């Protein structure tokens, strides 16, 4: 009679990992579908000009409110899909022309001994000018180095 001994070979297979992998895969698919990457939105902070009059309640800076008239940009839309920006003797009807105009304005300011950071810019749009054109003009002014930019009431 053969007696079974303890010399049988045991193969330790370890715990079954298949359910764990299933759960982790489900979690991964859930996060891939539900999550949203954050790189698509950009936030443009405004730095409003200071004036003696008007609402806002700003405290005057150490040197007092700027007395110089701000740089006013008149923005109109002759047709719904285009804009015309006029400032002084300059005129721009596209983003590229805007950048050129603001560059020239910047040079004029610097030549007159003023800095761009202290120059106050007010965009004066027509009632029907589209919001996307306002942002375009705002971005062009900011890119050129003007920092204090605001909007006036609609014309």
């Amino acid at each position: 009679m053969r007696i079974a001994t303890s010399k049988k070979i045991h193969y330790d297979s370890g715990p079954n990992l298949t359910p764990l992998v299933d759960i982790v895969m489900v979690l991964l698919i859930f996060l891939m579908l539900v999550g949203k990457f954050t790189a698509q939105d950009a936030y443009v902070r405004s730095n409003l000009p200071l004036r003696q009059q008007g609402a806002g309640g700003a405290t005057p800076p150490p040197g007092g409110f700027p007395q110089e008239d701000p740089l006013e940009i008149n923005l109109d839309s002759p047709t719904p899909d285009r804009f015309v920006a006029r400032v002084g003797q300059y005129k721009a009807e596209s983003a590229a022309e805007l950048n050129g105009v603001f560059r020239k304005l910047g040079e004029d300011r610097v030549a007159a001994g003023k800095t761009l950071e202290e120059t106050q810019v007010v965009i004066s749009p027509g009632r029907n000018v589209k919001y996307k054109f306002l942002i375009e003009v705002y971005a062009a002014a900011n890119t050129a180095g003007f920092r204090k930019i605001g909007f006036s009431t609609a014309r």
Partner: protein
Amino acid sequence: MRRRVLPIAHVSHPNLTPLIDVVMCLVIFFMLVAKIGVTTGADPTIEVPVSTLGSQLQSFANTLTLNVREKPALDEPLVTALVDPAGGQTQELRVADASGKNQLLEVLRRLRFGRDGRPGGTGVNADNDEFSVIIRGDKEMGYRFLEPVLIACAEAQVKNIIYQTRVKTEVVER
């Protein structure tokens, strides 16, 4: 004669440990990168303008996101915002209702100056100088719809106004 038997087959399963390591890394990555459950009340149906300017906002604390678009058939803006985050519902803020009240201005004043809506005060009436407004406007709306919102922000003495835009991505055409 000794019977010969087939040898016992010992099939070894594939080693799943590296697979679990990689999948765990991916899960942790998506948990950190994804924004789940964070709502600012932004209306996803509004198409914001594109801009090359702008930066990421690290924190939405102490901000109010205003969704601004044209109101169909009326010459006034449709402004909605998540005024009460606990409620989870955005509400419309009229710039001029039937009685002439400006709901938007009232809400902005309350958030800016505390419960009493007036400058000064302590406790629940304390002023909130760092309060910011994020304007999420439809790119095709006219300025006449944005103007009342900016006027309300100015009257409420909101010092920080942030315009939400989309990042411009260059497409190279060949």
